[in-house]
């Protein structure tokens, strides 16, 4: 089929044409309460073609390969109509010819279904082993993905990936008071990623029960210490999305705000997006435009030094492609996305971070995060009062909001630990969700954080 595609691509009279073909297969298992809620095994095969000419794209996705030629005709025709009065090129990228196959000792495809079910069931029964737990959800998913990429410049890449992960949710209830705790683990390392997590399941159960008794946080301004998961959500949601150049390049005012060389934080603050870290959920060798992933430093010692690009945005800003053009599946065109995003570790111990805080909040894990570029909001899964340098009682409903530029400047302490979290979910942007990413960092301390609540 690849030879046939190459012939069709060569025939098209368009400056740039690319074809993706994707095969996915996987298993999803989910327990809700005592019962197996779903066990879903699937085979998904599809593809897309995309054409570019003078700043204009056209894209067609499909499941039926017999009509490939008509899809190529569609994009060729539409890009010709659209390009009138437009200009634009793509940054030069080396057309790689490569084949990456996955080999691992514990390939999830080789693990029998009953063993996967057994694993999920055992964690689920740990969570349910308390009268205060009303319900649970344990979800397991593995995906094998093989993606072919061919473009009119000669790139011909096959890359295989395997994702495997699990998530735990515990719901505790006392009358109208319903509390939830969740946690997830995931990556590209194989089935052992989801093994031996009994302590995590216990932790989720305990936290949900403890949250029933926790008081709502009193709204106000606090000094906040974020754990590595929340630090990751901040690095990704609040700052990371601003580094995605597909938005910046179209907007002069944004370009001024996101000018390289501008100071964003203290000398201790460095933020990195690195798609090359082995085994992490956001890692890959080639992005969906055939550009190699790499380690991109975004903030170095407080100064903005880089951003994330597709071939289009790189050309528009006269910078180099960074290997960040990604699509969640063949049904979508690639857009600029993050990989594994984190704040680099510093040198403060946890006790040093909280030591001089009179009245603060230690926020742990995130239920979610959302951003409108400048403004962000995210909620921690659980939190504790910090009183006179010591961790105090648990509080709930800690929702943090702020302006990213001010908040970055208000980071005044960076811990000496470091964790990356992949999980099962991922990032959402422009209707494409979830895209596998990882995020993390050390514990960090932020001054003057607005927390909504009671």
């Amino acid at each position: 089929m690849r030879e046939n595609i190459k012939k069709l691509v060569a025939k098209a009279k368009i400056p740039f044409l690319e074809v993706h073909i994707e095969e996915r297969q996987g298993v999803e298992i989910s327990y809700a309460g005592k019962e197996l809620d779903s066990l879903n095994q699937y085979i998904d095969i599809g593809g897309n073609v995309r054409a570019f000419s003078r700043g204009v794209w056209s894209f067609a996705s499909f499941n039926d390969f017999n009509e490939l030629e008509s899809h190529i005709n569609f994009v060729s025709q539409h890009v010709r109509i659209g390009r009138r009065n437009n200009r634009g090129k793509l940054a030069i990228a080396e057309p790689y010819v490569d084949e990456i196959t996955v080999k691992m000792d514990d390939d999830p495809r080789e693990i029998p279904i009953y063993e996967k079910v057994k694993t999920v069931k055992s964690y689920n029964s740990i969570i349910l082993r308390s009268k205060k737990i009303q319900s649970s959800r344990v979800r397991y998913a593995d995906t094998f993905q093989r993606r072919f990429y061919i473009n009119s410049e000669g790139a011909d890449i096959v890359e295989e990936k395997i994702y495997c992960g699990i998530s735990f949710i515990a719901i505790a209830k006392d009358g109208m008071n319903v509390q939830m705790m969740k946690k997830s683990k995931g990556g590209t390392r194989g089935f052992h990623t989801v093994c031996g997590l009994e302590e995590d399941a216990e932790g989720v159960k305990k936290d949900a029960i403890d949250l029933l008794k926790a008081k709502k946080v009193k709204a106000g301004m606090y000094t906040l210490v974020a754990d590595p998961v929340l630090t990751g959500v901040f690095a990704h949601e609040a700052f990371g999305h601003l580094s995605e150049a597909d938005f910046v390049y179209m907007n002069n005012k944004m370009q001024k705000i996101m000018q390289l060389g501008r100071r964003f934080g203290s000398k201790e603050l460095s933020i990195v997006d690195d798609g090359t870290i082995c085994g992490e959920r956001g890692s890959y060798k080639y992005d969906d435009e055939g550009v190699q992933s790499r380690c991109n430093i975004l903030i170095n010692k407080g100064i903005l030094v880089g951003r994330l690009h597709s071939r289009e945005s790189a050309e528009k800003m006269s910078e180099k492609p960074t290997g960040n053009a990604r699509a969640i599946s063949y049904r979508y065109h690639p857009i600029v996305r993050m990989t594994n995003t984190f704040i680099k570790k510093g040198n403060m111990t946890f006790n040093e971070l909280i030591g001089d805080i009179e009245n603060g909040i230690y926020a742990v894990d995130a239920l979610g995060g959302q951003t409108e570029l400048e403004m962000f909001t995210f909620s921690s899964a659980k939190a504790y009062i910090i009183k006179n340098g010591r961790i105090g009682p648990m509080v709930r409903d800690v929702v943090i909001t702020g302006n990213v530029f001010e908040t970055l400047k208000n980071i005044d302490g960076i811990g000496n630990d470091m964790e990356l979290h992949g999980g099962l979910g991922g990032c959402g942007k422009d209707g494409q969700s979830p895209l596998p990413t990882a995020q993390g960092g050390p514990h960090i301390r932020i001054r003057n954080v607005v927390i909504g609540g009671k």
Partner: protein
Amino acid sequence: MNEILDSAKKLVNEAEIFCIKGKEFPVVFKANRFYTSEKKDFEGLGIRVINKGKLGFANTTKVEACGAILDFAKNASKYGELAKFAFPEKVKMKPIKTFYKCVKKITQDEIKERSYYLIKEILKKEKGAKIDIEFKMAEWKIRIMNTKGLDVTYQKTQTSMNLLIFLVIDSSFTWIYKIKVSPKKIFINKKDLKELLKKVELTKKVVTVNSGTMSVIFMPSVMPMHLRSFMMGVNGKLIQKGSSPIKHKKNKKLLDKRVTIYDNALLNGGVRSRPFDSEGVASRRIPIFKNGVLKNFLFDLQTAGILGKKSTGSAVRGFDEMPYPGMSNIIVSPGKWSVADMVKDIKDGIIVHNVIGGGQSNLLAGDFSCNVSLGFKIKDGRIVGRVKNTMVAGNVYDAMNNIEGIGKKIDNIGSFYTPAFYFKSLNIVSR
């Protein structure tokens, strides 16, 4: 499709095929310019089986792979939940129009002409604005078949238009947007444009607001966040699992008596209107809250079966998942207030048009705590400027007992049809 069902009969006791096939045509303008025009063909097929009394499921986008998929589904049934229902043999449905031919007649030229007009008019008023527009038209066909003899189909059309104005005012970002969606032909029109430009004008003056409790108007665009909490509360799955906080509250008055909410899959021209649900059970109009009293929960066949109830025709699903109870069109009855009168009535308060972070709180419990991404301060009955760095928080079950007034005009926000709500007092945190 019949052959798949025939081979299923040999392999398992009962089987159901859910099939979707369609096309979507997005046209996108980015930063004031035409950017891409796309075509997305899609098809998918989910097979649900009952074997030895237990449920199994598998799915594919490749019809040729159905043999393997059938085996997957059978294998899955070994571990599956006990089926507490039988597949329906037939469906007695009321006719409802879901397919509009006019959608198929929309041309690229018409979309471009209308989009360029909107961009031009906005740029006239606001030179530095960056405008993104996405117009989509789609048509698809749903077919449900089972080994009990059911074989039903309906076709659906949909158009949607999103317009996003991005402004940088004093190095601070502002987003103003409008989203419209309908099974009919729909565009953002001159009236919508006028409203958008009015908002642009209002955002230019930023004012501070003090933290504390005050009157708050939630425009219809914000209401789905609150309504989602109710929809979770009445979801048959959460009732069955016991995690709904209103599980034991049927026929109890939970909200202000002016609050009436229906789930209506038979709404004329509704975004989620359909003659039958995703299991082939006939659609109907279901009262959720009537004058503040909780009237019904939403069930699919399995959750209803477990609880000894009847399906409310509320099964929703994609081809790649098992059905579960969910909402169709949510219709909130209007009140007597105009938004202008609400503003006039407020001495100190805010009017909220958009929020971010609405989904992050404990939605099931009805809690909300979100950043006001577009909202204005009201002082002595007048809008005085935009608020920033402000959060609004509360609990929707409490708030809905603390209503000053309900708007008289219903707006359609996706599949939610709701008026604005005016609350006496909510918590505002700001700096």
